[in-house]
């Protein structure tokens, strides 16, 4: 399962999708419809919640929990932002999934707030800049560019 917000988060995830070739892929996103380039894929639209509209958080949690219970993903991968972080936390507790956080390449000097929180719920906690990596995590495995 990939669970990623639209805009730059999704544009970065698109560049990672070849890593999942041959796997059964399910997508969770904040756009009403799936990216047409994905072709036929199960897609779960969710509310885009940030600090500006945190009141919609219960709706988002319910939508994500429903998708995760139905799909029971082996792994969940996100490039952010907030909804991806919550998806990792829920998948870990509801389905025992492997979880991967890939912080945005836009964060060249420090991780985003959700990226720092992801350290608690990501089995692979990744940044896209080598100088931001630490021995105890986050780690650097490469970048989308």
């Amino acid at each position, binding site marked *: 399962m990939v669970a990623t917000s*639209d*805009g*730059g*988060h*999704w*544009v*970065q995830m*698109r*560049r*990672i999708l*070849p*890593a*999942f070739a041959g*796997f059964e892929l399910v997508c969770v996103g904040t*756009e009403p419809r799936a*990216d*047409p*380039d994905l072709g036929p894929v199960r897609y779960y639209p969710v509310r885009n919640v*940030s*600090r500006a509209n945190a009141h919609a958080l219960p709706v988002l949690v319910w939508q994500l*929990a429903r998708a995760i*219970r139905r799909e*029971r993903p*082996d*792994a969940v*991968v996100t490039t952010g932002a907030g909804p991806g972080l919550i998806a990792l936390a829920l998948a*870990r*507790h*509801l*389905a*025992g*999934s*492997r979880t*991967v956080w*890939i912080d*945005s*390449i*836009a*964060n*060249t*000097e*420090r991780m*985003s*707030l959700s990226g720092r929180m992801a350290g608690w719920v990501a*089995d*692979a906690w990744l940044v896209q800049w080598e100088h931001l990596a630490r021995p105890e995590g986050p780690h650097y*495995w*490469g*970048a*989308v*560019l």
Partner: protein
Amino acid sequence: MIFVTIGSMFPFDRLIRAMDAWAATSPGEEMLAQIGAGGFEPAHMPWVRKLDREAYVRTVRGARLLVAHAGMGTVITAAEYGKPVVLLPRQGALGEHNNDHQADTAAWLRTRPGIRVADAEGDLPACIAAALAGEDAAAGAIGAHAPQAFLDRIRAFVAGPRPRSDPPGGLSRRRRG
């Protein structure tokens, strides 16, 4: 055509106002602006609130220059289609973003081919003129995928076993039963 875009998230009226003023002095230039939730509606260039992904990609492909916020969605899409970009970073202090990471992003990007950074809106006309004169698109398009070594590492990790035992039937069903 020059495509002006502020991405898909927060409004960025400072860029839209500056480009509307630029359009007023450049009547021969075909333009389109994606203004998002901004309160300022341009008078001198066509605009839309938000293009869907297909229309967005079609517009990027048809553009000879993008003038945009310093967001990675715009920057990567422009690079994938080999389009030059002029970037105006959003400033957290002006309420244009949660924080100032776009200034950091721009500082990194300004050395890349095909990218020019306007540190203030007053620098936009000179950056646009230089980008159009230099035909920066000569930088060429990048591929559509991340480097293979990065993909391989993620694939190997994702294919591994679940690190935690999956509760039989799942927590939800257990609670219901």
